[in-house]
């Protein structure tokens, strides 16, 4: 018999196969985090599944790391809480750890809720709050730049703190951002990391040491949930039944005992899970959402635009080079783009009709919007008008019907970019390019890998590129949105990083308006200043707004839970039951019978 076909040979193969499988199982069990959990299966009617906030494996749960895993980031008030939660519907800050605030000249006074406590029952004090802000001052953390707007922070009473606003960078808007996005951390947990055995270290070294703390076994927060378990594709939070904030909700508990964040590789998988009821809330782009309504998937509005519009993706232009340095060219471009088609084709109707300007003509920003100005100065889709503007400015068209600039030179071939794989953006860019080609601008679309696109963006290496300046809502809106496209405060030449105003727009009038606005306290004056700023934006076109987009794609499945906030019952903002003031919806959910 052939040596390979001996019977014992076969059996030894089976033995080795079994060994491999057993080892594999053992390795895998060891690889999964398992603390002292006694529950390994989560009852569906007590568990809320969410998705779309964390895309890769969690690495650290330390809120002082620049990129901690969900929900330790910014204003997700589940484990760590902020002083106040921003409500995107009203534009107001609602109390969480903070009870109330008042802004007086150069000081912001915050009173804490006297009940506020850490999850171990010890009180959350003014000291903890001051410690939290100090640590961002002392080290180069991701929130360090907040201190540009603060001169100091001090205790002014048992339960009161004073934030002293910077004289040099006085900004009433940003301080409200600051108190709504900084998670308060317990001094007793973080101070020892910072002080023990760090005498000879530089502040950067100490920060690196602090960052190494993964904080992944029972983090001590002040919020209604704490970390229970995690793996590469899943983060499990468990309710803290003794949560101090239950007093804010008639002493009731938040409805879900567990909140599980799932991560998948792409939007399609999230959408499939949502449709099958495996996911209760998803913050991802979902094409043709109306087709999923009959499967129990719902959004904020039952009809168009389905979501609450909040942010404004734009076409940025590399302003340092011709032809973009000519305002007539920019204005003509703004007239050449079919915004209605973008809304219908690229956005599936998830946007109200675009209005001219850079202020949202609805919601909290509506008082600052001027319809008359928009009619007078705004750009709308009108190819004829675009050609007229160009002709008036001295442009002409060659035999190939491509644009020739006033000095008689053919305009070079331009690129329009966006990150590849962002299909809705790719479609938008294609529609914009078609419009621009119609008026004779030789422009081609190019879709780049995200990190490359991002690098080119910050270094100013683009002609047209799609980008959302300030892709969130916060108390400093709409000021900060203008700041992000019009301010030359941190101006750097092309090839050097600019974190804002990547198009490198420069205008003294815009700069002084942007500086003056945050100092105003009179409502009428603020309103007038915004009108002026928006007029300037429409006249100068430092960026071309393309559509309104929701801040969060808030869509949910009613297969296992009901009573989600919607436009019919807007008891909480559409902030996915965890961001800012959205967290209060957790107390109103009911498991589906």
């Amino acid at each position: 018999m052939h040596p390979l076909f001996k019977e014992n040979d076969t059996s030894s193969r089976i033995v080795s196969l079994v060994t491999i499988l057993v080892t594999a199982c053992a390795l895998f069990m060891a690889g999964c985090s398992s603390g002292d959990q006694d529950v390994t299966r989560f009852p569906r009617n007590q568990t809320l599944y969410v998705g779309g906030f964390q895309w890769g494996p969690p690495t650290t749960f330390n809120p002082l790391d620049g990129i901690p895993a969900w929900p330790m980031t910014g204003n997700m008030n589940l484990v760590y809480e902020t002083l106040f939660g921003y409500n995107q519907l009203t534009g107001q800050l609602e109390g969480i750890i903070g009870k109330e605030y008042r802004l007086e000249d150069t000081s912001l006074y915050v009173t804490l809720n006297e009940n506020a406590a850490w999850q171990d029952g010890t009180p959350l004090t003014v000291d903890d709050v001051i410690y939290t802000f100090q640590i961002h001052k002392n080290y180069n953390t991701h929130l360090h730049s907040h201190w540009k707007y603060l001169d100091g922070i001090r205790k002014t009473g048992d339960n009161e703190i004073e934030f002293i606003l910077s004289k040099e960078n006085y900004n009433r808007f940003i301080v409200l951002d600051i108190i709504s996005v900084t998670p308060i951390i317990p001094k007793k947990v973080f101070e020892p990391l910072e002080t023990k055995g760090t005498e000879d270290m530089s502040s950067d070294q100490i920060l690196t040491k602090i960052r190494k703390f993964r904080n992944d076994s029972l983090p001590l927060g002040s919020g209604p949930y704490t970390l229970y378990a995690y793996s590469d594709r899943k983060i499990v939070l468990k309710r803290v039944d003794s949560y101090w904030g239950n007093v804010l909700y008639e002493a009731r508990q938040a409805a879900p005992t567990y909140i599980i964040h799932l991560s998948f590789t792409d939007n399609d998988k999230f959408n499939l899970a949502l449709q099958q009821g495996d996911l209760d809330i998803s913050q991802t782009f979902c094409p043709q959402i109306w087709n999923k309504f009959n499967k129990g998937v719902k959004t904020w509005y039952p009809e168009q635009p389905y979501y609450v519009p909040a942010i404004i993706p734009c076409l940025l232009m590399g302003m340092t080079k011709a032809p973009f340095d000519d305002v007539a060219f920019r204005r003509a471009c703004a007239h050449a783009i079919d915004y209605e088609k973008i809304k219908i084709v690229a956005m599936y109707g998830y946007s109200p009709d675009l209005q001219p300007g850079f202020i949202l003509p609805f919601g909290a920003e509506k008082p600052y919007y001027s319809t008359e100005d928009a009619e007078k100065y705004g750009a709308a889709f009108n190819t004829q008008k675009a050609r007229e503007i160009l002709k008036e400015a001295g442009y002409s068209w060659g035999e190939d019907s491509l644009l020739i600039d006033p000095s008689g030179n053919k305009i070079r071939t331009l690129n329009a970019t966006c990150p590849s794989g962002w299909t809705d953006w790719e479609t938008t860019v294609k529609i914009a390019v078609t419009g621009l080609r119609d008026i004779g601008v030789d422009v081609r679309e190019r879709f780049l890998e995200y990190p490359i696109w991002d690098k080119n963006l910050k270094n100013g290496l683009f002609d047209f590129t799609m980008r959302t300046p300030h892709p969130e809502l916060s108390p400093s809106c709409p000021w900060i949105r203008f700041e992000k496209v019009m301010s030359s405060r941190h101006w750097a030449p092309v090839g050097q990083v600019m974190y804002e105003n990547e198009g490198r727009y420069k205008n003294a009038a815009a700069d002084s308006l942007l500086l003056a606005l945050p100092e105003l306290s009179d409502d009428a004056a603020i309103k007038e200043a915004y009108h002026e700023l928006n007029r300037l934006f429409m006249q100068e076109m430092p960026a071309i707004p393309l559509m309104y987009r929701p801040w969060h794609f808030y869509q949910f499945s009613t297969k296992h839970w009901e009573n989600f906030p919607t436009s019919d019952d807007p008891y909480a903002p559409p902030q996915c039951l965890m961001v800012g003031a959205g967290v209060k919806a957790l107390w109103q959910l009911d498991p589906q019978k």
Partner: protein
Amino acid sequence: MTLSPRSRYMFRRVGWYSLTLFVALFLNFMLPRLGPANPIDTIMTKLSSPGMDSQAYLRIYKSYVQEFSLDKPISMQFFTYVGKFLKGDLGVSFTKYPLRVNEIIVNALPWTLALQIPALLLGWIVGNVLGALAAYKRGLFDKGLYPLALFFSSIPYFCFAIVLVFVFAIQLQWFPAMGAYGNDMLPSFSFAFFGSVLTHYTLPFLSLFLILVGGQAIGMRSMAIYELGTDYVGYAKMLGIGEGTIVRYVFRNAMLPQLTGLALSLGMMVGGALITEIVFSYPGIGLTLFTAIRESDYPVIQGCTLLLTLCVLAANFGIDILIGILDPRIKAAQEAGNA
């Protein structure tokens, strides 16, 4: 001292393979670095806060460059890399910082092995038996099996995987569409957990298994038909040797190329896992590599491709040695000093 032809053959092989490994290490180090994206750019894209400005951005950027030693000359980075590799240390992931690459691979590898090894071995065995039977029996059995096997062997395996997901997971909802175990569970030694692992295992397993069965059955069938027509079979029949014995001879002879194929596919296993794992979101090496490439996470890409290289090298080496021992033609060449 003169070496026996066989030892000489072995030594020469070992030499060539070591050289290949070194070149692979070098390419492995260089290739990801030739791309235009910088991993720290990737990390920085995730950082944002309302007050963040250019200066803050640059400060944080610099601190990451130092932490990952990307400010050192590339030659120095290479030798550090080789030194660490020899100690079995694959470094720290960029985007999953502070996770170590070793940890990431150890978490992912078992899933890949547990999916691929049974699929490959069972698919190979079942495919060969079916192929041999079809060749021997012909008739109805062959007429039924042959087109089916042809279908499975020619459909690209990712297409087939997507079809499986669409039919059995989305439409019929018999099996889950993705993941390795239920979303509602944590790993534990319980029937519920292993049951869940099994239901999640079924579709990805079938997607590999059926295709392999198809391919192997086609190969084995034609080899066996060829063998059945050879002189020695006719001679054996003439001698009146029992049918069972003849089938055994035929089977054994048709087997040799199939075996080489098996060894090769075991070697390519880690790479082959890629698309199956992406389609089913199965948390193995394939998905890990895919994610790492998207994020320019050099150390993880290097770790995965190195594993792939090692497997392919080991499989090839194994086949070389095996063939050296088994194949009489190679043996003859060794003795003549040509191989």
